[in-house]
């Protein structure tokens, strides 16, 4: 545990390195112009939930679409591509976000919660009772 604490402390104090946005191919034919990006995500689980955090700057809470189909979690975020004036310097491109995840555990679909804050999407997927870890006791004769 001590090791983890030290590691996280270091992580926050070092300088952030530039990562370019990850451009992807859209599913199917392109219906709109422009690039698509895969958001950077954190995925973790505890005993009750599977939580996904995705960085989607420029996406407001009304422009995000979350779907679960055939054991796949799909997230899509639309951004406004309007820019005032003419470009002087362009270091990043603007485009919608798209990502797809295979869910390896059974999710209780009725109580999924999602929120969007400052361009970060947070989805809490509660595990169904079937996929919660169960402690197995060994009987001895």
């Amino acid at each position: 545990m001590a090791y983890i604490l030290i590691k996280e402390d270091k992580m926050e104090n070092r300088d952030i390195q530039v990562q370019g946005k990850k451009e992807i191919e859209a599913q199917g034919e392109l219906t709109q112009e422009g690039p698509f990006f895969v958001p950077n995500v954190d995925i973790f689980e505890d005993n009750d939930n599977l939580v996904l955090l995705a960085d989607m700057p420029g996406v407001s809470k009304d422009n995000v679409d979350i779907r679960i189909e055939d054991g796949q979690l799909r997230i899509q975020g639309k951004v406004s591509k309007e820019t005032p004036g003419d470009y002087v310097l362009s270091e990043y491109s603007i485009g919608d976000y798209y990502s797809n995840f295979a869910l390896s555990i059974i999710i209780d679909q009725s109580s999924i919660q999602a929120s969007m804050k400052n361009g970060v999407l947070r989805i809490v997927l509660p595990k169904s009772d079937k996929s919660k870890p169960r402690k197995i006791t060994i009987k001895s004769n």
Partner: protein
Amino acid sequence: MFPKTFIDFPEWNVGNPFLDFERMRRDMNRLAERFGKGLPSFSTAGVFPLTNVTEDGNNYYIRAELPGMKTEDIEISATNSNLSISGQRIIPREGDNVRYHRREREAGKFSRMISLPGSIDTDKVEASFMDGILTIVLPKSEPMKPKQIEVK
């Protein structure tokens, strides 16, 4: 084994070739846009955060993607023709019992200087932060603004 390496067919299913064309076309457009105006290259400065700078007759606009940050964690200061953005992105701990599957979101400190092509009115610089995008509006100083000259 042998026939496969011998024939060496190109991969057909590498994805949508039109996407590559589209990407190329966009790069070409950007290139043309830059050369047309004689502006510097589009390579990045390699410093976080990546920024886009635009201008119109009255203002420069600087935009940067800083998802998950709070306004109080971002510090901006402006001089005559330079702007500095610095701050710290903190990703809160998610409790002791969590097990990570993926961890791509980065935390850390950053500090960046941006030189503007002209001088600005530092008193009127305004910054806003929405949906994880920082937008700074920098009004050009009076002598920098384009003036229409009437022909008599």
